[in-house]
């Protein structure tokens, strides 16, 4: 345990220095992340305006609050491990990592956490500035804030493990597979990136309950904004725990199976 902590400390330090070097491009990446929620915030606000101020009870201010919190939670849960893992396998970069006496996921976790917290320095003022433009209305209670924190951590963990597992498919296919593209389309609609899931048709909502996407994003957002009742909160936290276990199991199985297949391309 103590050894692992030391490893994390070292990894956090190296990735901090690395991102400091590429700060301009890191900020550019953020720009793209900010635009999407702004587009859909504008679309829904326009509809709310045309419908006499609200869509199914969501006012323009509610949409603003939803998409601004979504922006922050999406930033905190986002990662690109899938893409990185593909490159690793394709270029044979995985081989030196396997020689280390520690699971490579730890380095990825440390790197991802560093990026998230460093970029909060840019993300929080951006969200604040957008708040001044779009006037969000929300009443965040101490209790919802308290419950938000564990659900956020669970969301980060689930999304990281699921996308790391998707990255592991590189052991079997060396091309960007159809599975990944379907994953991203599903993620967009069913995680609440396009809008609150309550605005979707009922069958879609049922589907969203069964799949992992909304537990990675929409659930913590709505929890914080107080849009969920007690029943939904308890149910959501249970669903998150189940998905954490499932994704951990999936990752472990794929990792062991994949390693047996891996012959070290290019190495």
């Amino acid at each position, binding site marked *: 345990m103590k050894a692992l902590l030391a490893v994390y400390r070292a990894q956090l330090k190296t990735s901090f220095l690395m991102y400091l070097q590429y700060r301009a*491009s890191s900020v*550019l*990446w953020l*720009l*793209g*992340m900010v*635009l*999407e929620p*702004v*587009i859909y915030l*504008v*679309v829904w606000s*326009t*509809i709310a305006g*045309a*419908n006499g101020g609200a*869509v*199914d009870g969501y006012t323009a201010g509610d949409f603003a609050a939803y998409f601004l919190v979504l922006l922050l939670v999406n930033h905190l849960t986002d990662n690109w491990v899938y893409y990185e893992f593909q490159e690793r396998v394709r270029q044979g970069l995985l081989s030196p990592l396997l020689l280390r006496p520690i699971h490579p996921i730890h380095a990825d976790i440390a790197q991802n956490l560093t990026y998230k917290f460093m970029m909060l320095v840019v993300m929080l003022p951006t969200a604040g500035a957008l708040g001044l*433009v779009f006037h969000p209305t929300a009443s965040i209670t101490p209790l919802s804030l308290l419950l938000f924190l564990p659900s956020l951590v669970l969301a980060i963990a689930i999304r990281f493990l699921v996308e790391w597992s998707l990255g592991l498919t590189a052991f079997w296919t060396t*091309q960007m597979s*159809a599975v990944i*593209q*379907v994953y991203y*389309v599903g993620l*967009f*609609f069913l995680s609440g990136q*396009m*809008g609150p899931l309550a*605005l*979707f*048709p009922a069958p879609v909502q049922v589907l969203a309950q069964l799949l992992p996407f909304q537990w990675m994003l929409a659930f913590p957002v709505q929890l914080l904004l107080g849009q969920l009742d007690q029943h939904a909160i308890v149910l959501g936290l249970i669903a998150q725990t189940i998905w954490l276990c499932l994704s951990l199991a999936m990752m472990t199985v794929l990792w062991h199976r994949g390693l047996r297949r891996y012959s070290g391309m290019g190495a």
Partner: protein
Amino acid sequence: MRYIALLRRFLQLNLLRELAYRSNFYMQIFQSLLSLGFGLVGLAVIFDHTSALNEWHPGELLVLLGVYQLVGGVINLVIQPCMQQLMREVHQGTLDFTLLKPEDAQFLVSIRQIQIWKLCDIVLGLVVVGIALAHLGATVGAGQMLTFLVALVAGGAIVYSFWLMLATCSFWLVRVENILVIFQDLYQAGRWPVSIYPSWLRWTLTFLVPVTVATTIPAQALIGQLAWPTLLGVALFALLTLVLSRWFWLFGLRHYTGASA
């Protein structure tokens, strides 16, 4: 005439290269359908709650979606791959080989990479536009067709000039690929009519990153909502950016020292 012959030769070369990877074709069809489905589901969710988005009715937004797919196809067919290769070569220093060829360098760097299978997006976009127009029951006259083509070409020219200027920046900055990745994200904004955005964003998406001129305006031309002055303005803007990017490219070339020389 010589340019047409060159263009044909590059098309042949790229076609031959792609024919070696025929499974890419099926992958591309899958991707195009997925991206179209993505757009259609988005529209379905929106129109579940309203009958018009800022005066744009479902059929009209479907026209816009088709134009979005079509223009995106053109960008991915030739503009983006060419400019990405240009930047890669500046970074690696292999651009010198292209500059040595006895043809206009801007022409060469703008046509040598063609991703043939992206034609799928263009065909699919045209099909969607056709279906949407039939659904609207609109008869598109020769005049309207001409306005559409002018707007489409002008929009394409503006996007091309924008990319060329960004790519030219790599003569000084060397690594600018990131900026172009951002373009993919920004292009998403073209899915929706530009009039819904607040003025600062509308301004940015028109002049700073010309996304909407390439999608909203041709779509407006097709549904007969484009005023002549706007079309004239867009055409002039296109000419201006073409001249400006040409000048900037030549200016950049004069400052380019090569990586190995």
